[in-house]
């Protein structure tokens, strides 16, 4: 009984604020807390805002490209760490582990520093490189988890039968890892779509993305359009995470 009560309170705490935002995005009043009836008005306003549409397309483009690149590099990292011996293996492993726990802020300013030194102007490329970099460790960890479940005999058998490493990679390892690859792509996509801290440091005025646009709106306080925009973002993340978890929990 206490257990049910405690867990219910926990989930109410976690989901009540989100629920409030979603409900008020449908409220037919701009500042009232009371329910004035259901409306799509605020969503309509969002879709008519052409600036916001451009910003959203930027975010989707960055997230798609970053997730694909990070998943590719993350897969290569997982496969290299699991099946090869090489001199810097331990250091590479530690670097991946540190990147997961290092504060975003530190990675953000580090990237800002190197982009300025290399004189790469802030914009599309800096954002893409930054997003790929912070997604790689998460992609790699997701795939390493699956890699450990692969039956090593399959790989040995292929090698004995004369398959080259690349053939083994794309004919055996990739198909076996496929659910994890899909999951890590989806998770990288949401990480990229939601990132504020790192993007804040490496984005430029010519290429704005959604989380930063939301950040500048949120600083000005609670507004119905922001409620609607945040609800859409939450819905997108929710759907993606559910699909990713499904892919991950599939049995081999």
């Amino acid at each position, binding site marked *: 009984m206490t257990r049910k009560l405690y867990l219910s309170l926990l989930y109410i705490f976690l989901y009540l604020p989100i629920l409030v*935002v979603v409900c008020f995005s449908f409220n037919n009043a701009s500042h009232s807390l009371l329910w004035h009836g259901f409306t799509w008005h605020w969503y309509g306003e969002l879709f008519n805002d052409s600036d916001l549409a451009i910003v959203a397309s930027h975010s989707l483009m960055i997230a798609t490209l970053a997730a694909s690149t990070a998943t590719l590099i993350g897969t290569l990292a997982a496969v290299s760490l699991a099946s090869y011996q090489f001199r810097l293996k331990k250091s590479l492993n530690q*670097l991946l582990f540190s990147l997961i726990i290092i504060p975003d802020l*530190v990675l953000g300013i580090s990237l800002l520093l190197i982009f300025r030194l290399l004189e790469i102007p802030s914009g599309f490329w800096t954002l893409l490189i930054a997003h790929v970099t912070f997604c790689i460790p998460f992609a790699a960890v997701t795939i390493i988890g699956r890699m450990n479940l692969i039956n090593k005999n399959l790989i040995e058998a292929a090698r004995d039968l004369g398959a080259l490493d690349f053939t083994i990679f794309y004919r055996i390892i990739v198909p076996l890892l496929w659910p994890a690859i899909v999951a890590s792509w989806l998770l990288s996509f949401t990480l990229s779509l939601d990132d504020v801290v790192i993007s804040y440091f490496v984005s430029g005025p010519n290429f704005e993305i959604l989380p930063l646009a939301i950040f500048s709106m949120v600083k000005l306080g609670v507004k119905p359009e922001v409620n609607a925009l945040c609800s859409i973002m939450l819905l997108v993340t929710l759907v993606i*995470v559910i699909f990713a978890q499904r892919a991950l929990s599939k049995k081999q």
Partner: protein
Amino acid sequence: MNQNKLFKYASISVVSVWLGLFALVPIVLVFICSFLNHNDQSFFIWDFTFKNYTQLFNGIYLKILLRSLELAVSCTLLCLLIGYPAAFMLARLRSRYKPLLMLLLMIPFWTSSLIRSYAILALLKTKGLLNLFLLSLGIIHQPLEILYTNSAVLIGCVYNLLPFMVLPLYANIEKLDNNLLDAAQDLGAGRFKTFKDVIIPLTIPGIMAGTLLVFLPSITLFYIPTILGGAKSLLLGNLIENQFMMMQNWPGGSATSMALTALMIPLIWMYQHFATKGQQQVLL
């Protein structure tokens, strides 16, 4: 070169070059930059100094540092206090809703904490739902002014980071060997003694992992104080942001971030020390 080695070397090089160029080198650069001087004309000048570190220990900087530590410690403790029983109950739960409950815990892990901080803002504002609720129940007679105070920042941090505490704890507690708990009770240990002498020591890796995942973000999520805190709630994360983006003092900002990174070294050391004591990694 043997054609078969090509794939091996190609994949290792792609991974190492990317992470080296865009993660390792930049972080080393920040470290070097933290010892440099700066002036109004350029972000940094090549002149070795410790001043960026020593200035962290005086006046306003020290105050910010202490306030950030206080917030991070309170946030971590609160998350642990709320999260430990929750993780324990979830791990022992036998219910067909369990996968759903776990999914509901995973979702905040991946959703934008900016949006979740905004949700707290909507809930806490003076004319917000919380006040309306408490007023209508008659618990309070005047709206609480929580928003734009340090309490709001603390609530925002706990709200955002609680799942990061519960998940590693859950992973750890779920793997607990029931035989050990039964053995403790058979040998006459009470519930409290079993908890203190058996369960807690066995879940230290989970506690450490959760602490690590909560403590650092609570200092560095600079937008939580920006959204929920007042002008007085400037924290270390905001300081670094200001030093880089407003004051254009890169060496200063670098030193502050290095100090921040240094804070996590003892935590990581403790984590590795405890986690390698016959336990698997539970972080993620």
